């Protein structure tokens, strides 16, 4: 089983990390360096949190249509739609938030200004507000996320969990720390009170910010930097999700050339020296990579956050693998409260 190596690895001279439990978390923000599989992990997390008759909402804010590509559906409109069924009768909804639409919705909701919206658009004001005006875009996006997280219907939460496929590590803290951004610009008014409410949610136990990484130097360094930034801004960090981990294929210790040669001979495989040399070189590379990965894993452990590991998928990600990853998350304690 692809998952089998996990326990053996975690006990490897490392102190166990806390179990990933966030009893009050409703909003799960997923960040990570580019190339770490952030969107895939966010989708798997949404599936895991919907497992067992729950309903989760997977949200993207970067206009990349990453969710649609992942689930192999047409581009998502600015509308919540069901995109997947989770095990045991759960449902995953998805939403791609478009800042322009969010602004128009906001104007309508708070000021009954929908009509003014189209005039503002002609004027270039919408474009201005969503692309140029500093912080506005992030206020709108996080505001919409907050609205979905706290929305109720007949006294019941509409979503048991909301998963935000957030901006990458380099931009996540300013993105979530909207109040500080906007504070210098608006000292009073509805935008200010709106962003205050957003930050109150983001800094509460209802939020968990997960950082996805792979066991390489730069992503791990960015994970550590992000953890420090989140701490400094009082934003609640959740788990470190180590993606694309591989099982160890070699027994510990030195690679004995004669033993390998004997093995090839016994299997009636070509034992010519160039093949043997190549195999030994590949094995040495493998050991070197494992050594580096152990070093990186140790650094992540030192953060003291729950560590969740997801296996490397050799054949590329599809809906089946999302379920596989979701299962792995579930096994490691990730579930809706």
């Amino acid at each position, binding site marked *: 089983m692809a998952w089998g190596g996990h326990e053996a690895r975690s006990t490897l001279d490392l102190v166990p990390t806390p179990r990933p439990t966030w009893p009050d978390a409703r909003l799960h923000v997923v960040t990570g360096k580019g190339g770490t599989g952030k969107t895939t992990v966010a989708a798997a997390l949404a599936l895991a949190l919907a497992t067992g008759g729950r309903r989760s909402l997977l949200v993207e804010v970067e206009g990349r249509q990453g969710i649609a590509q992942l689930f192999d559906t047409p581009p998502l409109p600015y509308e919540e739609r069901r995109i997947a069924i989770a095990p045991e009768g759960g449902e995953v909804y998805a939403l791609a938030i478009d800042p322009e639409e969010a602004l128009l919705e906001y104007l309508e909701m708070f000021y009954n200004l929908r009509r003014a919206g189209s005039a503002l658009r002609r004027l270039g004001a919408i474009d201005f507000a969503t692309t140029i005006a500093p912080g506005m875009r992030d206020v709108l996006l996080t505001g919409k996320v907050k609205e979905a997280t706290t929305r109720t219907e007949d006294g019941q939460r509409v979503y048991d969990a909301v998963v935000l496929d957030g901006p990458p590590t380099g931009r996540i803290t*300013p993105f979530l720390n909207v109040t500080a*951004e906007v504070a210098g610009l608006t000292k009073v008014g509805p935008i200010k009170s709106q962003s205050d409410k957003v930050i109150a949610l983001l800094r509460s136990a209802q939020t968990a910010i997960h950082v996805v990484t792979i066991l390489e130097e730069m992503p791990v360094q960015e994970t550590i930097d992000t953890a420090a930034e989140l701490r400094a801004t009082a934003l609640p960090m959740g788990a470190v999700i180590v993606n694309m981990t591989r099982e160890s294929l070699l027994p510990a210790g030195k690679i004995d050339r004669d033993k390998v040669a004997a*093995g090839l001979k016994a299997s009636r495989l070509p034992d010519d020296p160039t093949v043997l040399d190549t195999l030994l070189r590949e094995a040495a590379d493998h050991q070197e990579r494992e050594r580096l990965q152990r070093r990186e894993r140790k650094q992540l452990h030192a953060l003291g956050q729950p560590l969740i590991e997801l296996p490397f998928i050799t054949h590329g990600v599809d809906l089946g693998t999302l379920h596989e990853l979701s299962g792995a998350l579930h096994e490691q304690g990730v579930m809706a409260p």
Partner: protein
Amino acid sequence: MTTSILDIDALLTDPDTRIIVCCGSGGVGKTTTAAAIALRAAEQGRQTVVLTIDPARRLAQALGLSALDNTPRRVGSLGRKEGGELHAMMLDMKRTFDEVVLTHTTAEKAEQIFANPFYQAMSTSFAGTQEYMAMEKLGQLVATQSWDIIVVDTPPSRSALDFLDAPQRLTRFLDGRMIRILLAPAKASGRAYFKVVGASFAMFSRVVTKVLGTALLHDLSAFVGALDTMFGGFRERAQATYDLLKRPGTAFLVVSAPEPDALREASYFVSRLDSDGMPLAGLVLNRMHSTAAASLTAERSLAAAETLEETGSTLAAGVLRVHAERIQLAGREQRLRARFTSAHPQVAVAEIPAQASDVHDLAGLRRVGNDLAANAAANTAAQV
């Protein structure tokens, strides 16, 4: 295969090559590739500067970029040919923006602009500022005429081609009615102001006041007013840099990892560069796996590994499993490459093998450069 191979040395030794732009999605090794190419250019005798955006700490140290002072610094101890030098710099977005403001306005006005909260936010966190400033810095480096080759690493953007769009977005913004409305208070006053902008401003002002409060409108108006004198300059520079990228002396290299997402992005880049008429030199496929023992297939290796495990030869079994995994990975990567080249048969490709450990010294960068150059050599050898 009929695909053309990217010949990096031909590109670097061509005296007409003046700018190399490395673009690609985040996490594909763009910065390392840019640094390796720059080092190779320098060691082939060309006066080279590499503009990096956000290098890994140890790579930055290897390039001597511990001081972030926004000017190129010479990287010491290169080998080989005489005359070539490598300089490196890391982009300081805010400082570059400040410099632009200072060049275009009086010291007094610049102080006002620097103090404005809108400017502070725009110069540090406005989406697109980094892209625009990277292009601005490139323009400055070109203007000094001290470089044979400028290698540019592009910012890891939301949309990978934000740096191409930044000048136009700025232009669109500056030409918009919105700006004229915001400028009006600075140009006219009292009644005349309302005459200029009329009903649309009344409505705009009503909305903004309601949504943001009056203080904000005042700050914004002051900011735009203060920037007014610079608009012409901004627009010209943005356009000039964009045009610069289209010139024949520029070569775009799209960097990608052999992953579906990264290649999808690379594919989008290629189409976009093409439709903008930007000169594309080729695709660099980073972190590729291969094996020198392809004759021993994954299937045979795995079958043998299973038998060996039964007899307790775990080491030999493990070695065979490592080999099988590598072959499977290499096969997958080659399929992804083939898929890309069938969609873009005109694009030259070169591979860089996966390094066993991260690159953070000049020797490592040199190795990457050698590996990149080996593509063309291997191709020539194959044709002979």
